[in-house]
């Protein structure tokens, strides 16, 4: 490892050359973290012909882009990406490295953390820089890695006090994303790709991707159902309400696990994070696991039989009642108003 820096790196994830939103969300957060430490923000871009993506990273706050381009890097593959990133970290010793908690990020980050023997915290929902006293020692500018833990019953703050490099993966949609004002340019540092026989141990034969099959993040109205609905038959009420209101259907983890709703519609810590204009939670008790994925919604309505359900604690409107009665009534009243 080199000498310790105050730099923040963000791994820029791309799928067939298209950058992932979460990478830009992380740049926006990373810029704040870097400023708090007096360091700079660097985007690490691997791929083939990435000029367009590199320019975008400057628009979202990167001071510098480390760019490794080669046809062999066009698609994400664990071995070359892991090797290259680990080597770069060993040479430059950034203070913080951030990844999206996507399938790619969760495949890559642990590999890199292991190779560089760095601490890694998965699925963070917040990141802060703070001076910390831990076990009678004082640490300047540590990264507080905040994540729900243990089924979402608690929020844990994780630190990596003794390691030069602190790594974290962050869920999509948790951090806000806004470009800088005006034209911004950063420094481009191109790094040559040196092939390694290990890179070719895994080859991609074919890839199928349907973009935005379900786009919960963009939906202005979301109706979400929970395990409290009791059956897949009752869950149909959620679809009915969403249909009536022109919204998207979502579910809690418990509803997904019970097979009421497909996994791509899961909202929460291990699903999608959303902030719609209106979020209606039906039969969702509101474990923090779920709340982490929807509490930023503009207006929240909760429908639950249990008046003590935690979901009421974060709702703007609470309706205590049985969903099988309340939801059809809601639809009926709404349809009458439209007439």
């Amino acid at each position, binding site marked *: 490892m080199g000498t310790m820096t105050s730099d923040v790196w963000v791994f820029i994830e791309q799928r067939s050359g298209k950058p992932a939103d979460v990478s830009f969300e992380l740049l926006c957060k990373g810029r704040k973290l870097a400023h708090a430490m007096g360091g700079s923000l660097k985007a690490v871009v691997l791929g083939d012909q990435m000029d367009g993506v590199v320019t975008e990273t400057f628009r979202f706050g990167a001071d510098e882009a480390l760019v490794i381009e080669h046809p062999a890097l066009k698609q994400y593959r*664990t071995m070359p990406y892991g090797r290259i990133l680990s080597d770069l970290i060993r040479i430059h010793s950034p203070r913080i490295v951030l990844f999206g908690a996507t399938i790619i990020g969760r495949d890559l980050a642990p*590999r890199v953390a292991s190779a560089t*023997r760095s601490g890694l915290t998965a699925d963070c929902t917040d990141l802060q820089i703070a001076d910390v006293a831990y076990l009678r020692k004082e640490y300047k500018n540590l990264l507080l890695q905040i994540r729900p833990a243990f089924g979402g019953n608690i929020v844990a703050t994780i630190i990596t006090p003794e390691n030069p490099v602190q790594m974290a993966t962050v869920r999509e949609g948790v951090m806000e994303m806004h470009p800088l004002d005006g034209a911004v340019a950063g420094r481009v540092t191109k790094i040559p790709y040196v092939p390694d026989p290990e890179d070719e141990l895994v080859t991609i034969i074919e890839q199928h991707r349907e973009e935005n099959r379900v786009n919960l993040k963009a939906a202005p109205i979301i109706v979400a159902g929970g395990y409290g609905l009791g059956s897949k038959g009752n869950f149909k009420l959620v679809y009915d309400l969403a249909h009536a209101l022109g919204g998207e259907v979502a579910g809690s983890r418990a509803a997904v696990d019970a097979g009421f709703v497909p996994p791509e519609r899961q909202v929460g810590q291990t699903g999608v994070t959303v902030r719609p204009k209106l979020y209606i939670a039906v039969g969702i008790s509101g474990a923090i696991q779920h709340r982490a994925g929807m509490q930023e919604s503009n207006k929240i309505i909760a429908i639950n039989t249990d008046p003590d359900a935690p979901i009421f604690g974060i709702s703007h409107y609470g309706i205590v009642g049985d969903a099988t009665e309340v939801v059809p009534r809601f639809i009926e009243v709404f349809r009458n108003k439209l007439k």
Partner: protein
Amino acid sequence: MYHSIVLVKQVPDTANITGNVMQDDGTVNRAKLPAVFNPEDRVALEMALRVKDQFGGKITAITMGPPRASDMLRECLYMGADQAILVSDRKFAGADTLATSYVLSEAVKKIGGFDFIFGGRQAIDGDTAQVGPQTSEKLHLPQITYLEEILSIEGRTVTARRKIEGGYEVVRCTLPVLVTVIKDAVEPRPFSARRVMSHKGAKSLLEIEKMAEGNSLLYVDQLVHEFESRGLFIKTLTMDDLKLDPERCGVAGSPTKVFKVESVVLSGGGREMVEPTKTGLGKLIDKLMDDHILG
């Protein structure tokens, strides 16, 4: 013929957590929680069993955990694993994923001679999905994470379908490889009644020692030998057995520390209760329409 090592973990049943299981240092008092076989690890074992069913070979299930993880290892034997190994030492306590992967990778090296390492994508207690890739890196192996289906195995080449964002990809990989499987990959088989009968007496060293305790006629070495010869010995590997660096195990080997833990305080306030009547719902819908949220 392929030898598969399956990484399994006994996890606290996170659906049943109460406040008093959290300790002051922010770690979890696992002894106070019901322990279960991590669901995706069970799927991983099923995947290994299917490879064995088709091509022959053997399956070794290993776990790093406290002595009571023997319960889960017996379940591995009931499903069809040929042998089960408990990697256990007080000095492993408090390990994060980096320290865990170090211990597991060294245990795997000691077992040796494998073609596949299977594991669940992630464990339900941490949801990190890190131990698989980290173990793979330490063994300098390629990895296939989020595996949905093995399409074919020909000689030293496996072709498999794995999940990616919004779809899937088909990859080809040279063996040996570490694979992590997702929940829906295959349906784990139930315990075989025959295997439950034949393996319910399987015991770890600690359990054999307990058996010998207070019975002067029983000698541990002799019992171990007897259990081993009947294929009922759950081998235990300790830090010393694996000649591990203590600085890389347990708390000492874990760069991440739990700094603080908070129960979540609900923001409350601002909430308005709505009567579930037509009038109540009508007023609410009017308000949402006025605010241009609905309609």
